[in-house]
C-alpha cells in the first residue's frame, strides 16, 4: 500500500492493556491550568523509566468549579503502579501549583461496568496534617487541604479503566528534517482526538527502544533495527536504503477505537515528501493483545 508515494508496510502495532485515568485540572486562569498540566504530565514518557505515561488530553469543556481547565490522561502498568505515580504527581505538581484544583475527568467513552475507583484525594488529604476537611456536593466527596495560598481542592475518588498503551507507528524518512516535519504533522492531527495521549516530548520519540539489552541490568535499549547510523552493523536492520532518520509516535488511549483512529489520521498526515516508509513496532503478536494493522486501518 502507498499513500502519497509513501510505502505503508504490511505490519501491525502491538499494544498492551494499561490502567488509565483522566484528571481535570482547573485553575484561576488558562495559564496556571497549563502550568499544572505540564508539570504533572512532565517526565512521563515511558513506564520503562518514568513509571507512568501521561499526556494532556485537551481543554475541559465543562469543569466542576467553572474555571478554566485541562484534561490529562495517565497510564500505568497496573492499578497499583498508576495510583502510586498519580499520588506523587498530583501531590508534587498539581497541589503545588497556585490556585489549582483537581477533579476526576471521567471516562464516559468506556463502559460503566469496566470502571473502578482510585482513591487519590482520599490519600492526598493527609498532607493537611489533620486540618483537612471534606465536603460532599451532589454525592461526590471533595477534600479541602489547607495550603499556604489558601485551599487545595481535590476529588476523593477518580475513575480508572483498562486503557491501551503502546500503540505506535514509525516514520522512516530521507532526512531528520523530513521525519520531523512528518511527525509534527501527524501529532497535530492526532491531538484532536479526545482520549488519546502522546506521552513523548511534542508527541514524538526519536529513541524508540527494544526489549532487553546486551547489558543484564538494562530492561530496554535502543531499537537497533531502526537506527540508521548502524544499519550495516545490524544483522536484521529494518532500515531501507535511502532512509537516514526514523521517528516514532507512541499512542496511549482509553479505548481501542481511539488508538485506531489516532493511528489512522496520524499516518495519513505523515505521508509527506521525504518520507519513504511507515511501519510499526511489534513483538510478533505474542506479548500485547491489541494489534493495529496499518493497512487495515488505512484501507
Amino acid at each position, binding site marked *: 500500500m502507498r499513500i502519497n508515494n509513501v510505502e505503508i508496510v504490511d505490519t501491525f502495532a502491538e499494544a498492551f492493556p494499561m490502567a488509565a485515568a483522566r484528571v481535570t485540572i482547573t485553575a484561576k486562569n488558562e495559564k496556571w491550568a497549563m502550568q499544572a498540566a505540564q508539570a504533572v504530565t512532565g517526565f512521563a514518557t515511558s513506564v520503562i523509566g518514568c513509571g507512568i505515561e501521561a499526556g494532556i488530553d485537551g481543554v475541559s469543556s465543562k469543569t*466542576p*468549579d*467553572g*474555571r478554566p481547565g485541562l484534561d490529562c490522561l495517565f497510564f500505568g502498568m497496573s492499578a497499583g503502579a498508576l495510583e502510586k505515580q498519580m499520588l506523587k504527581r498530583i501531590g508534587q505538581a498539581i497541589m503545588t501549583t497556585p490556585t489549582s*484544583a483537581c477533579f476526576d475527568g471521567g471516562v464516559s467513552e468506556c463502559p460503566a461496568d469496566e470502571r473502578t475507583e482510585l482513591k487519590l484525594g482520599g490519600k492526598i488529604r493527609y498532607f493537611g496534617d489533620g486540618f483537612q*476537611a*471534606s*465536603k*460532599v*456536593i*451532589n454525592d461526590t466527596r*471533595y477534600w*479541602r487541604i489547607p495550603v499556604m495560598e*489558601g*485551599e*487545595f*481542592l481535590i476529588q476523593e475518588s477518580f475513575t480508572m479503566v483498562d486503557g491501551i498503551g503502546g500503540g505506535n507507528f514509525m516514520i522512516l524518512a530521507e532526512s531528520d528534517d523530513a521525519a520531523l516535519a512528518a511527525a509534527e504533522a501527524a501529532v497535530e492531527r492526532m491531538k484532536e482526538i479526545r482520549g488519546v495521549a502522546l506521552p513523548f516530548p511534542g508527541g514524538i520519540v526519536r529513541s524508540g527502544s527494544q526489549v532487553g539489552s546486551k547489558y543484564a541490568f538494562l530492561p530496554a535499549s535502543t531499537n537497533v533495527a531502526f537506527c540508521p547510523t548502524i544499519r550495516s552493523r545490524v544483522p536484521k536492520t529494518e532500515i531501507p536504503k535511502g532512509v537516514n532518520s526514523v521517528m516514532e509516535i507512541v499512542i496511549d488511549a482509553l479505548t481501542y477505537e481511539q488508538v485506531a483512529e489516532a493511528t489512522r489520521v496520524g499516518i495519513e498526515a505523515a505521508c509527506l515528501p521525504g518520507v519513504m516508509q511507515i511501519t510499526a513496532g511489534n513483538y510478533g503478536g505474542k506479548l500485547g493483545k491489541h494489534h493495529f494493522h496499518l493497512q487495515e486501518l488505512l484501507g
Partner: protein
Amino acid sequence: MNTRVHLTLRTAPDLPVEADSLLPETVTGKETADIAALPLLVGNHTETVGDHFQVEITDGSPDTADTLATLELTGNLSRFKHIGEAMTRGTLTVNGPVSFHAGAKMSGGELIINGDAGDYLGAMMTGGTIVVNGNAGHFAGSSYRGYSRGMSGGTILVHGNAGNLTGARMRRGLIAVRGTCGDLAGFSMGAGTVLIGGEVGVRAGANMSRGSVILLTPPEEIRPTFRYNATCVPAFWPVMHGSLSEAGWSVPETGPYALFKKYSGDVNEGSRGELLLYAGTA
C-alpha cells in the same frame, strides 16, 4: 411506562392525618380503587385515601415492578403529617402546604413541596432531595429529641425561610435556605453544610464540631467561640454554587467566586467547624 398518580384533596380534614403511607412505591402498580382503599390514620381511627382524595391515574398503563409512579398531591395538606417520610425512591410532589415531619428519615428520591412545610422537615434523613418552594418550620434536617444525629445525607433546598435549629446535629448533607433562618442554625452539627441566604437568628453554629455554616447575609455579631482566620474564596464554593444553580437555587449576590470571612469554631468543640460569612466578590 411510568404513570402519574394524582391525589386531589376534597376537603381539609379537621383532625391531623398520618400520611406516611402516601409514597410513590405504595401507589405504583395499583388501580384507582386500590389506591383509594389505602389506609390513612385520621385522629385516632383509620380512614382511607378515597375518603379524602379524588384519585386519578394518567399517562398509560399501570407500572411494572421496576418503574415507580410519580405521585402528586394537591390541596391544603397542612394537617397531613409525615408526607414522604422514609421515602426511598421516586418523585413525590405536593401542591400545597404540608405539616410536620415531611421527608423525615427519607433515604432517596425527590420530595417537592410547592407550599410551606412544618417542623422537622427532612429530620434525620439519610439521602434524597427535598425542595420546598415556600417556608420550612423549625428543626429542618435536625435530629429528633433524644437522638444525637440529625440528617446524615441528602439535600434540603428551601426557597423561602426556615425556623429555629435548622440542621441541628446534622452529620452530612446540605441544607440551603434562600430566605431568613431562625436561631441556632447548625447547632451542634458534626458535618455537612448549612447555607443561609437571608438574615439569620442568634447563635449560628453554636456547639458545632465540624461542618460549615455559610451565611450570605452576615450577622452583626457572631459567637465569641468562633475565631477569625482569613478572607478567601473557599475552594469548594464554586462547585457548590454551580450545583445549587443547576438545582434552581440561585445565589445571585455572590457568584461562584465570592469572598468569605472564615471563622473556626466552636472552640468548645475543637474548632474544626467553620462559619463562612460572605464578604464580597473576589
